[in-house]
């Protein structure tokens, strides 16, 4: 009764199920500022959507979800547009380099192996680091609230980035940084995102928190803003070159995810930075373990269609 035929995917789906998937991923997107591509695409493939269509339609729905999320965070004053634009410029350059890298790797025949291993290592490293760091932060907050005001000794990393040229002040993030930092880090994330075939939110968020030292709530809004532009680009490119964007699928997903993102933003406001980080870290670790198991256990079918991640 609730089925709907998707013309590009060439498959019928249950509307309620797809709407629910969208809402769940949108919720996470609103809370953490990650696009959710690394969760949504595998889930859609699990429900029989061809991998190429799943990835491209997911980009289309992320456009909707991140618009809604960016809008909500903008109202709360959580979007650093200056930083977002610089990261975006770097990200586009990095994405172009990444696509070339993957083309060369594919020619040597080692691409898939390297992509998966990079995935597991990145997720594992980011997940463990964030988890331990925020756990430490939570303990510290509980134990010594009074000592917080004590001026911290400047780290070597802070000294190093302070020495870089073209320092400017970012009002929203309340930090002074060299213009080179977001540009170079944007390139780095762009390369990784293109290689892994995802929006890059789950790499961008830790980069903003730990390397750019932005406050967590500004990180989320700014990350969504940057993801919005990345996914607009991907959607149009995929529709033009591969005809893999299923608009009907994306529409159902985005109604679910836009609603989910709104609730997510409200939840995000109620949690403190360390709580947010520890939940995101756990999520990243779960995905990492799932991928690791996928690498270690024998698959039920030893062939698959070309396309997808």
């Amino acid at each position, binding site marked *: 009764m609730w089925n709907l035929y998707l013309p590009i995917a060439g498959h019928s789906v249950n509307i309620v199920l797809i709407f629910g998937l969208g809402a769940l991923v949108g919720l996470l997107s609103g809370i953490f500022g990650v696009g959710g591509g690394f969760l949504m695409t595998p889930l859609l493939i699990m429900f029989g959507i061809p991998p190429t269509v799943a990835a491209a339609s997911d980009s289309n729905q992320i*456009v909707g979800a991140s*618009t809604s999320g960016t809008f909500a965070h903008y109202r709360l004053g959580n979007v650093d547009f200056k930083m977002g634009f610089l990261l975006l410029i770097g990200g586009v350059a990095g994405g172009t380099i990444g696509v070339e890298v993957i083309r060369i790797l594919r020619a040597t*025949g080692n691409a898939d192996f390297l992509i998966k291993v990079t995935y597991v290592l990145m997720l594992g490293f980011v997940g463990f680091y964030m988890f331990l760091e925020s756990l430490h932060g939570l303990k510290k907050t509980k134990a010594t609230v009074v000592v917080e005001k004590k001026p911290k000794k400047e780290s070597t990393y802070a000294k190093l980035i302070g020495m870089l040229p073209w320092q400017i002040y970012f009002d929203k993030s309340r930090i002074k940084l060299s213009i080179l930092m977001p540009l170079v880090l944007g390139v780095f994330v762009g390369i990784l995102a293109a290689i892994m075939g995802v929006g890059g939110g789950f790499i961008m968020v830790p980069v903003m928190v730990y390397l750019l030292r932005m406050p967590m709530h500004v990180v989320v809004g700014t990350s969504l803003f940057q993801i919005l532009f990345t996914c607009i680009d991907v959607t149009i490119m995929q529709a033009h070159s591969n005809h893999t964007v299923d608009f009907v699928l994306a529409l159902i997903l*985005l109604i679910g995810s836009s609603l989910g993102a709104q609730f997510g933003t409200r939840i995000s406001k109620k949690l403190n930075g360390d709580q947010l980080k520890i939940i995101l870290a756990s999520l990243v670790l779960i995905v990492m373990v799932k991928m690791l198991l996928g*690498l270690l256990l024998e*698959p039920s079918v030893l062939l698959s269609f070309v396309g997808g991640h």
Partner: protein
Amino acid sequence: MLKRILMGGIILITGLFFMVGAVYSAENLTFHVSPELVAIGIRFDGATLHISGTIPSDCEAIVRIIGHNQNLSLKKKGKAMGLLWMNLGKIEINGVPDIMLIYPSQALYKLSENDNNTWEKLGIGFKSLEDKADVLPKTEDKSKIFKEFIKLKASLDLYEKKPDNLTYGDVSGAVKSFKVAVELPSNVPHDGFNAELYAVKDGKIIAEAVKKIKVKEIGIPAQISSLAFNHGTLYGVIAVVIAILAGIIVGVVFKESGGAH
């Protein structure tokens, strides 16, 4: 004289034999498929083809749905460094139908369970497909790759063998009726397929009939497909604009409802 009578006898018996064959293929085989056009609208969730007809009463029936041949490029998974399951290169499988559903009678299915070569002898099963198909590179273990290919197609409901769906009805004189409900999945190929009927006797096909079935998108799916495939960039821009508008609308709606709290 005796020689002539003997020759005449042989000619008569041979003639009768061919006549019987002609009777089998021309008169005792009827075949109806409904509908002959599968229309894919916005609520399409697969379709049921009702196939019925008659075969000689001493034969067994097989109904087969077979699509157009395609050449596929697939990723092959294997163990890298003896530990990790990865895509380890590409495989090409050429000359395989996009859909193949086989509905044998129960008696035939049981026979094939006891004799592994039944389908190979008939030449219409998955085994015969393997013999005709090309697997590249040639160095691959064709039989192993083909087994995995059938599993992959079966996971999409596109390759199946269903023994319980075909049933027989009344026997009237030299013929008996049969019917089968063929369940087509929602991902049925859009370029149509053939519905085939085979009458089998003593492990051999003695008569067959074919009907072409068309598949066509109608209404909204047809319009969306046309825009996506003929004007890709415009389609992409429209998809993005609607996604942004939907995001803003949800944002505004929530702002208003949020203000009421």
